[in-house]
């Protein structure tokens, strides 16, 4: 039989080895290194606080109450660590920044695309692509806000190969990466994306090739947040929302159904689309699928109900979240809407 001291050391070593091995595993992926660092900070903090409490109160307690103190501290520590982890890491639920370098190189060599860099007041930059359709005269513009895992280079390149551009041939097309995405500086959040959306709109209005009375905003998935916001804050000609959602909490619960009741207060990214939708003066086009596995159909309905001017909402079956632009019927609906608002 193992002695009590041996059992204690055995459990400590097993716990430590488990945590170290998982940390090492996460550390080998670039995108999770920051998380490992944050978890280490949480662990050190919890250890420091517990050590302090035990050193101060441990000696004063009788042996019988020692175990009670340990259990109370363990419960509080677990809840605190979980709470801090949720606060620090919830960006993982909403944002999935990416940068498609091969697509970037391909677009660099394509004369139809112009790389756009917007310098911000704080010295940081936003980057993306402008696709010209007519360079000589001011022309209509579509500003596209992509989903949580889209970058401007990858999306423009994908559109080129999937034939999507055919449907937007009469328009200039601008897509700028969210902060932290592509080559854009910064960290993604609801506030930073709203600020970025305003800067992108203002930048587009000052372009010679753009008719600033004919700007259509298009938002897909996460981008429906930025699109709805800018449509409520600026004058736009049209608004196309693909797989939209009503508020940030819906995105959280779609990924991990635990942000209810008190847990709602842990969420940082509110994305209050229904509020901004109620301020919009235009009638948008809303496209949603019953079989969207990432954004529930009901969220689109909730947003639809929030617009004061009856939106044109179309519902589809058997379209998964990443397959909207592969469907001809979706592209035709957008094309038809764009024609209508141009009249």
């Amino acid at each position: 039989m193992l002695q009590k001291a041996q059992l204690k050391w055995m459990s400590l070593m097993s716990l430590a080895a488990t945590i170290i091995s998982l940390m090492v595993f996460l550390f080998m992926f670039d995108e999770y290194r920051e998380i490992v660092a944050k978890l280490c900070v949480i662990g050190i903090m919890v250890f420091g606080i517990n050590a302090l409490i035990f050193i101060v109160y441990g000696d004063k307690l009788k042996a019988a109450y020692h175990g009670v103190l340990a259990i109370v501290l363990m419960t509080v520590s677990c809840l605190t660590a979980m709470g801090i982890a949720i606060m620090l890491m919830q960006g993982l639920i909403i944002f999935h920044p990416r940068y498609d370098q091969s697509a970037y190189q391909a677009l660099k060599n394509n004369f139809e695309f112009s790389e756009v860099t917007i310098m911000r007041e704080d010295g940081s930059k936003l980057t993306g692509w402008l696709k010209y359709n007519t360079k000589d005269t001011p022309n209509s513009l579509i500003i596209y806000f992509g989903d949580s895992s889209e970058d401007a280079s990858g999306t423009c390149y994908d559109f080129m190969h999937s034939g999507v551009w055919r449907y937007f041939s009469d328009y200039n097309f601008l897509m700028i990466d969210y902060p932290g995405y592509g080559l854009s500086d910064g960290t993604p959040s609801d506030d930073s994306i709203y600020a970025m959306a305003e800067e992108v709109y203002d930048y587009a209005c000052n372009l010679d090739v753009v008719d600033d009375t004919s700007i259509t905003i298009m938002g897909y998935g996460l981008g429906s947040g930025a699109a709805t916001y800018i449509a409520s804050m600026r004058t736009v000609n049209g608004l196309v929302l693909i797989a939209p959602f009503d508020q940030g909490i819906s995105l959280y619960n779609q990924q991990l159904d635990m942000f209810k009741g008190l847990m709602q207060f842990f969420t940082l990214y509110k994305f209050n689309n229904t509020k901004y939708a109620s301020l919009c003066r235009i009638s948008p086009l809303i496209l949603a699928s019953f079989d969207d596995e990432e954004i529930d159909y009901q969220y689109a309905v909730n947003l639809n109900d929030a617009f004061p001017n009856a939106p044109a909402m179309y519902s589809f079956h058997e379209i998964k979240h990443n397959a909207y632009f592969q469907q001809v019927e979706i592209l035709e609906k957008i094309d038809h809407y764009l024609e209508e608002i141009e009249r």
Partner: protein
Amino acid sequence: MKHHLFIAGIIAMLSMIFPLCFVLYLVGGEMWLALSPLWIMAIFIVINLLLFKKVNFYDDKDDTKALIIRAFINLSLAIVIPMIIYAIVVFS
């Protein structure tokens, strides 16, 4: 003092398990991955049971050197095993 630090260490590490489960669920989206701290811990408990019960590094079981060797073996396994898993995931 040593005993207090020991308990504080156990509590800190136990409280790390839940955030790790949370992160792993977000990373993989699957329950077997989210629960990996539990089954990996089970594996390490078995390894440590063998280390403490079967493998006698020194005659005196409380010897500090024996503890250090066991800790070193645990640390090595904790680093090497995930690297092997990573290599299999990436290169397969």
